[in-house]
């Protein structure tokens, strides 16, 4: 009887928590829509005149384009239709490619960038945890100092600086890998390595710190005192408890990876969303820029939501106290 009501209360708390988080994300996305819409009003230049180019004297064509792009309507009406469009996954028409929907311009990149970031995330988590555990188990030894030194280097060298070293070594000096391009597995190696290194290094440092903290807990001493083998102490007792605080950093790491795709795609000429957004800034194709901003904010929010919910699952204490 008592158990049932406790479980019901817990379940209610979980739902309330989830609802609050989802509401928070809806709010952030709404702010993002307002921001991008506002930015579109303030960007320099008249898009229709840019589109017209040589035919800038053609009044009829200008009026037709203005109507097609909805720029002849009052601002409030434009906002409502922009918001409605975004909700349906329709980001309006591109300024660079006349009469082409933004979502068609995005299609190629949408299949590349999020996948690249997710694959890098999935690979960097175990690598980082492994590295951090390696260092923590050898705390104070030369191996620990060396690992820590490499970790600080990895966090300090910007990935495009690292890129020039790696491309020079592995594509120019020893031509193992292609210098740039996209399409073959070999062309994905260097971009992935460059995305993985900073994420792995970040996770490695956190793992080491958290693990050293957990290793001082009483239950670890108990586990050792009862004669449990060291690797069981680490993997069954200590590491599991470092996963909880580690999981809260996944959001930040994914955010970093999304930013990283901009750099990596620019270096290696990968036709992803990041390089598309940069090109679009220069081509003054603002609807495309804003669509990428909205999409990346959405991905980032969804990962953060996922992490928050995961956090509740991993740590029963959070579930009960909230």
């Amino acid at each position, binding site marked *: 009887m008592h158990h049932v009501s406790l479980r019901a209360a817990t379940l209610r708390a979980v739902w309330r928590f989830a609802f609050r988080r989802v509401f928070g994300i809806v709010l952030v996305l709404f*702010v993002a829509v307002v921001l991008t819409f506002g930015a579109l009003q303030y960007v320099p230049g008249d898009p229709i005149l840019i589109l017209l180019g040589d035919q800038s004297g053609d009044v009829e064509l200008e009026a037709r384009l203005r109507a097609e792009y909805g720029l002849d309507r009052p601002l409030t009406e434009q906002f409502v239709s922009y918001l409605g469009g975004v909700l349906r996954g329709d980001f309006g028409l591109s300024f660079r490619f006349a009469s082409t929907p933004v979502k068609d311009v995005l299609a190629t990149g949408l299949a590349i960038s999020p996948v690249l970031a997710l694959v890098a995330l999935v690979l960097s988590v175990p690598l980082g945890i492994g590295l951090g555990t390696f260092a923590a188990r050898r705390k104070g030894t030369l191996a620990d100092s060396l690992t820590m030194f490499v970790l600080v280097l990895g966090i300090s060298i*910007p990935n495009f600086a690292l890129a*020039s070293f790696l491309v020079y070594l592995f594509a120019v000096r020893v031509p193992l890998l292609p210098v740039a391009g996209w399409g073959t597995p070999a062309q994905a190696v260097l971009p992935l390595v460059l995305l993985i290194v900073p994420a792995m290094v970040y996770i490695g440092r956190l793992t080491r710190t958290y693990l050293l903290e957990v290793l001082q807990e009483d239950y670890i001493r108990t586990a050792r005192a009862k004669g449990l083998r060291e690797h069981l102490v680490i993997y069954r007792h200590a590491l599991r408890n470092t996963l909880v605080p580690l999981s809260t950093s996944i959001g930040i790491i994914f955010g970093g990876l999304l930013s990283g795709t901009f750099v990596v795609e620019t270096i290696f000429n990968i036709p992803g969303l990041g390089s598309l957004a940069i090109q679009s800034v220069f081509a003054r194709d603002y609807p495309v820029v804003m669509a990428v901003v909205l999409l990346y904010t959405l991905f980032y929010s969804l990962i953060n939501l996922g992490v928050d919910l995961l956090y509740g699952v991993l740590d029963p204490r959070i579930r009960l106290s909230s």
Partner: protein
Amino acid sequence: MTLLRNRHAVIGGVLVGFVTLLAVLGPWLAPFDYEAVDMEAVWAPPGGEHLMGADALGRDVLSRFLVGARVSLGVALSVLAITLVIGVTLGVVSGYVGGLVDTLVMRLADIIFAFPELILAILVAAVLGPGKLAVVVSLALVWWPGIARLTRSLVLSLKSALFVDAAITSGTPTARILLQHILPNIAAPIAVRASLGVGFIIMAEATLSFLGLGVQEPEPTWGAMIRDGIGALRTDPHLALFASLGLATVVIGFNFLGDGLRDWLDPKASSR
């Protein structure tokens, strides 16, 4: 433990000091005009007249490297100054006044935290147009909430301190309480936090310039030099490699210095 015994702080301090010296003396040390185009020196290899070689327009890489250090540090210091003024002011007001102001400031900070930082920078660059102003504005926009949150929490913990109560009961004006009693007591942790941020601000500036959204030609920055150099890695690697080396050195220096300062002020953190 004195600061000089901390190996990280010393290495970091030396690197930062060296780069700062180069940045300050840069214009006098530079052997050439950083803008001077010399078609006979296009992609000249390092050595001889051009110690670090020349770039695609025959401009002296060493001169551009030195001026680039100045630009990087200048942008970083401007961002830091703006961030500190906005962050500390809003943090103090938010923490001390509380209520609606507090809620508004902290919600605003939450919303900014909800965006990946480069995304905000791209939004700003789109509106303002790529350039130095866009870099400073977007980085300040992204960095102030962190400082505001820290300041707020420090103010909150001081607000109930006895000496603040004493000042309030003796009728000290609020502005004076904030400036004379609260601010001096929160300055040190904020300074450490700020020093930890410099490396990342420099990295962010370089990233934006690398993407072409930051400092524009003909003014040199390491980020843009790496972008120009990466395309020529196969034949003329010196431009990208020297600029990368400079950037990595300065970021490593600031990160080491920041780590060292933190350990020095909070010895508990270093024992872990």
